[in-house]
């Protein structure tokens, strides 16, 4: 049987979920034996999200054009998408800018009003991705198969979610150990 093609992506989040993933420690070795890591900011050097991915952990909310495009690509090319951590599930801290009225207001607040010196708006089309007006959770953009809240989700929760999948079963996302926010 072919190995499970496994990926992780990092959208608008602090990468804490990925750090927690690395906290899986020696179980990572076990995981590596059972899956092919085909795309991951912490486990692969591949720059383009590949076709035919079996499982993908998506960290972060959808905050800019790059996030949006990558997420759409991930959904098209992935069988099972896991919303990974509070930013993916609720938009969390990145969404705390949503109370300001849109992308322009956020940029003005950040780069002009709060600037200590040389206030200027960043504008490099093609290099710096354009902000979306609102940061939204992953499931508001594409269908999600499994939700794994947590800020970050503890390593045990990540393992308890992935282990059944490796056996071809769906994990049961219930109880404090599995779905507590924060």
């Amino acid at each position: 049987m072919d190995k499970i093609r496994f990926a992780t992506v990092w959208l608008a989040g602090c990468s804490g979920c990925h750090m927690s993933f690395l906290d899986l420690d020696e179980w990572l070795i076990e995981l590596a034996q059972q899956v092919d890591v085909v795309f991951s900011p912490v486990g692969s050097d591949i720059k383009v999200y590949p076709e035919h991915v079996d499982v993908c952990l998506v960290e972060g909310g959808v905050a800019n054009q790059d996030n949006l495009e990558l997420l759409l690509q991930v959904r098209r090319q992935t069988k099972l998408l896991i919303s990974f951590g509070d930013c993916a599930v609720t938009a969390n801290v990145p969404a705390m800018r949503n109370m300001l009225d849109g992308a322009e207001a956020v940029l003005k607040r950040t780069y002009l009003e709060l600037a200590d010196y040389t206030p200027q708006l960043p504008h490099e089309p093609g290099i710096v991705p354009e902000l979306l007006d609102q940061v939204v959770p992953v499931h508001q953009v594409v269908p999600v198969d499994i939700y794994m809240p947590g800020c970050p989700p503890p390593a045990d929760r990540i393992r308890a979610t992935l282990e059944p999948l490796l056996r071809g079963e769906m994990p049961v996302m219930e109880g404090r150990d599995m779905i507590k926010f924060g």
Partner: protein
Amino acid sequence: MSVKTLKIDGKDIAIESGTTVLQAAKENGVAIPTLCHLDGVSDVGACRLCLVEVAGSNKLLPACVTEVAEGMDIQTNTPKLQQYRKMTVELLFAEGNHVCAVCVANGNCELQDMAVLVGMDHSRFPYQFPDRPVDVSHEQFGIDHNRCILCTRCVRVCDEIEGAHVWDVAQRGENCFIVSGLNQPWGEVDACTSCGKCVDACPTGAIFRKGSTTGEKERDRAKLEFLVTAREQHQWTR
């Protein structure tokens, strides 16, 4: 003392008349979820989490304000109730700005616990991201309206136990907020005795002690119960 006999989740129960369904369930080991209920203050039936099904009634009844009656046959956890409770919690998360990760009550929050209890792993309803203020004008305490679920426990505890009535509800519908004094900054409300009962009563991190950071909020619920027992039964022990 007259006694009523009834069934809760199939279990036969005999209890003093005048007791609420919520109390009767609790005394018999059946936990009904609540958010606006607080032991020692009046009930308002606002959060709708304690709704139960009673055989013969086509309405769902709030356990906190429904008195036991002879022969009642109550179900507290049917699939329908589970579904509605989950939706209620989703609605609560979606209407405010509940960012557990940076909240003083993280790990010690009744809303967070409720999400776990009802099995809410995400909100199907889009977040509203309302623009709500934080008032830290009080010397010792602060109120962050982003985290408020409008359970009005603070209103009742301040009015009924402390007797100061610093808090009330202003505006209506989605614009409701807990108002201090005559819509003054909390720190300027003379009626406030700085007793801190509202901090203890608040189920989330909306009302907090200044200086506590993420996950550091502690509550002394026993203090509220002590005061109520002292007042009602003249027993001064805790």
